[in-house]
């Protein structure tokens, strides 16, 4: 009896040790590469710091300045980021959703090939996207204006003017919607066939089925893409940064691009840390609100 409890105890200790050995990478990641840098960032956010010289001027200036001295630049970069998220999220949602409905027609042969084909262009790296779109939208030698000209539409400035750069970014983001369809199709396939059939028997039309069965059954996916879309959209960096030039810099000045320029362009690392904390607060607050929507989501058991 005594031996038994002792071996039990020893086994528990052994499990504890082995468990910690297996998650050692994660422990190092959390302590050394997450919480420590968070502390570093919080510390320097209260100073003027350029890495080379020691931190100076302790105070809240890095948190106050965005709302006072630098309000103009700060508010415009916030507005651009939110506008981009608010426009591309529903636009991409409608495109991806209707495309998935279309790709989910089972009676069409070879539809799987198209699913793969639609995914491939999403694999073009951001850097290449930058080069490519600059090339295509070049006002004089690009294909875009040439094609518009053939259709009798006057040339567009695209990324070479601050007025049109953001709209151009909305347009180029549409070329990536094909990639989202794979997850959506999986969700649509998970809808019980019996539901759709019984609706049909009772005389429900296509749109009735779409709005009262398919859309509600896809609500977990809508919820998922809302959350990842908002969090990802607010952190837009590469796709805008690679297309930035002197002419459009003011209108592609996304929040994270602004933080990057503060740190690496102006050596204001303290200020950049403070602004990245502001971004964190914005994302955290929005996430809390979005998770409140969870109660409207239908999960598997509710079908």
């Amino acid at each position, binding site marked *: 009896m005594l031996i038994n409890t002792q071996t039990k105890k020893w086994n528990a200790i052994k*499990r*504890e040790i*082995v*468990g*910690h050995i*297996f*998650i050692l*990478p*994660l*422990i*190092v*990641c959390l302590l050394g*590469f997450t919480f420590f*840098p968070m502390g570093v*960032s919080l510390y*320097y956010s209260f100073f003027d710091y350029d890495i080379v010289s020691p931190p100076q001027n302790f105070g809240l200036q890095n948190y106050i300045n965005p709302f006072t001295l630098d309000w103009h630049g700060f508010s415009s970069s916030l507005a651009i980021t939110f506008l981009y998220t608010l426009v591309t999220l529903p636009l991409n949602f409608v495109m991806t959703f209707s495309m998935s409905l*279309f790709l989910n027609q089972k009676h*069409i042969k070879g539809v799987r090939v198209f699913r*793969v*084909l*639609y*995914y*491939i*262009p999403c*694999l*073009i790296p951001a*850097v*290449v996207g930058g*080069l*490519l779109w600059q*090339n*295509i939208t070049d006002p*004089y*030698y690009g294909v875009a204006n*040439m094609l518009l000209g053939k259709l009798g539409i006057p040339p567009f400035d695209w990324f070479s003017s601050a007025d049109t750069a953001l709209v151009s970014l909305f347009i180029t983001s549409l*070329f990536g919607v*094909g990639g989202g369809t*794979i997850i959506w199709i*999986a*969700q649509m396939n*998970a809808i019980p066939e019996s539901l759709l059939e019984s609706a049909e028997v009772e005389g429900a039309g296509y749109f009735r089925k779409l709005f009262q069965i398919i859309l509600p059954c896809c609500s977990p*996916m809508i919820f998922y893409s809302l959350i990842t879309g908002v*969090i990802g959209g*607010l*952190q837009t*960096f590469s796709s805008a940064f*690679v297309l930035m030039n002197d002419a459009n810099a003011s209108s592609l000045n996304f929040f*994270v691009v602004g*933080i*990057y320029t503060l*740190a690496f362009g102006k050596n204001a*690392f303290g200020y*950049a*840390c403070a602004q*990245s*904390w502001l*971004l*964190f607060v914005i*994302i*955290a607050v929005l996430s809390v609100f979005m998770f409140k929507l969870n109660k409207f989501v239908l999960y598997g058991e509710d079908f």
Partner: protein
Amino acid sequence: MDGQTQRKRPAFTMLTVQKIISYFFLIFFTFFFFFPFFIMLFRSFMTSDEVLFDLPERIFPSSLFLGAYKELFSVKMIYFFKNTLVILAFNVIGSPLTASMCAFAFTKINFKCRKFWFSLMMGTMMLPGITLQIPMYIIYSMLGWTRTNLPLIVPAFLGGGAGSVFLIMQFMKGIPKDLHEAAIIDGANTFYIYVRIVVPLALPIILYFAIGTFMGVWNDFMGPLMYLQKERNWTVALAVYNMFRGEFKGQQYWNMQMASGVILSLPCMVIFCLFQRQLIAGVTFSGIKI
């Protein structure tokens, strides 16, 4: 009899019309999504003269001219490829290995602190990347790592992030407990169970994650841009970005620009086509489980 055939025939043609319209749209959207890639491909085969004088009217190159590709490889490109491969090798091995270890511990080892570490890990998921990247840069530069490629290698051995550990966990949960328990009765230790039972069974999701890591590292732009300051450490993606903003700026280099774009895009496309089935299954799984 007659009435029936008459009623059937319109239904049949309706379906055919619907099919034709469907195929029309499917093909139309294929061209739409591939349009940027085709333009890139065509322009990469143009000669310098064609790029300078025949644009924008010229859409197709006059021949399969490979000069742009040759020129590209004569300018240190091989060197940048080597840099990228080194970083890739460490990441493709390190991330799946450590992520699967953590996922294994969280799902198959019943230790007391696992809830604590798990919730701590999930708590960091909402943290925006930039909030950590700026202080990490400060730390790396204090360590002197910004002159090396260590900032892109060392983090590869740290579990691959909360999302990937969680994803692999969801898959490992589906592995029946009996296998594991039978092995314990046979006297197998935990490491044996990890290597010989759980990893082989979780291979589909680990493979998916490894391919995802490859694509992520190959395409990564922000990381190299921030941490790789010396030209001798540049990855292909960063080199392409910097080259065509500096040395090779200008319209006469457009064919080279597009050639570099094709080279940078092709590996991921080829890998996607090769592992298409597993990848689509993986994307589907991650979409349903998260």
